[in-house]
């Protein structure tokens, strides 16, 4: 799990172009939206694309995103359970 969290942090930094950030700067338990990283709706789209492209997970229900994107750790747990690649 810890390895997946690190991998996910690197991918989030790359896909969201979080300049000047390193994986160590991201608290895996902090909220991704609002507080914490302060991401917005376009970032949510980018994360949905990331999950589909890198892990083969297609989110069928947009409301699921609210739960899945609570934090990097919650996202990693969801990926571990549902990944197809």
């Amino acid at each position, binding site marked *: 799990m810890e390895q997946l969290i690190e991998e996910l942090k690197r991918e989030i930094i790359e*896909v*969201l*172009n*979080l*300049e*000047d950030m390193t994986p160590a700067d991201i608290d895996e338990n902090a909220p991704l939206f609002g507080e914490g990283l*302060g991401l917005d709706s*376009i970032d949510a*789209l*980018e994360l949905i*694309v990331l999950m*589909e*492209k890198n892990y083969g997970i297609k989110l069928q229900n947009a409301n699921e995103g609210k739960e899945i994107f609570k934090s990097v750790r919650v996202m990693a747990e969801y990926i571990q359970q549902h990944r197809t690649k």
Partner: protein
Amino acid sequence: MSIYIQSASQISMQEPLSEQWMKSPILPTVAFNSPLEPDFKRFILPAESRRMGRLLKRAVAVSLDALQKGGCEMPDAIISGTGLGCVENTEKFLNAVIDNDEECLPPTPFMQSTHNTVSSQIALKLQCHGYNSTYSHRGTSFDSALLDAVMQLQVGRISTALVGGYDEMTPAYFKMLGKLGYWRSDAESDVDSLKKSGINGSVSGGSAVSLLLANSFTENTLCHIDGAEIYSVASLQEMCDFYFEFVQKYLSQNNHVDAVMCGLSGDQENDAVYRRFVQQCCQEADVLWYKHLFGESFCASAYGIYTAACVLKDQKIPPHLFYQSPREVNVVKNILVVNHFQKSDFSLTLLSR
């Protein structure tokens, strides 16, 4: 209604956000010339910056710099010209379409690949709710944006306008245009070679130029815009006919054009049009050029206006701007900026001090 260029700013292969090129220009030595960039953190917050491609960052920086130099916080209009828009993002998006088999497409490059992204991003940054438009008319994109601003200022619809020309050259696009013979070899990209006739191709450059236009004169004003027009011409004769109509309309009696700022680029076909035009229409004027300092791009004509405005403000023509030997009397009261794109789209802008 008098219209003035209050301030201007540029990013190019020259020192960015500076007029240092007037004293110590950086001359091209290769065909692909990357712009020198300022520290964007001066203008853009990191959170804003992460979704901006290079062209957007450059456009926002020159816009804010021009507004600051002109002492204007909020322009009435934001009008941009761009040949290709944010082509770096277009490439990213199209490559993703191929790489991901038309699935899992990233939204950010898609949103930023539209041509109006630049004008809208500047408006978002300034929170400007005024007139906002983008012209994408190949080599006269900037000229069209300028003409729009001039006409709206003339009728009093606006009193200030931020007018810009923005284009970027990516390595992939440079390579594609190279196959069509747009560029010179690196060995023939120096200024002396650019003046040699009989060679096709020029040197590339990106465009990021912002001008603040206003209807009032201040001590910082660069120059007055006497007239600006765009024509579609079919022949040199038509071009000359338009020129004589233009000067009759905008040049006061007993006055003449002191200097002609031409888009001479080193490409023999392109340059032949300017040579014939000068020979037939304004032999008495000094012939100036600017593309050897800023490179060729769809919005390169923005540098022509910018260069002429800086010269008029300074009242001195730097030696490196003369394409031919200068006249004995080097007085510059007005400059005619001439631009053509592939011999058909033709623009004239008369500036004076």
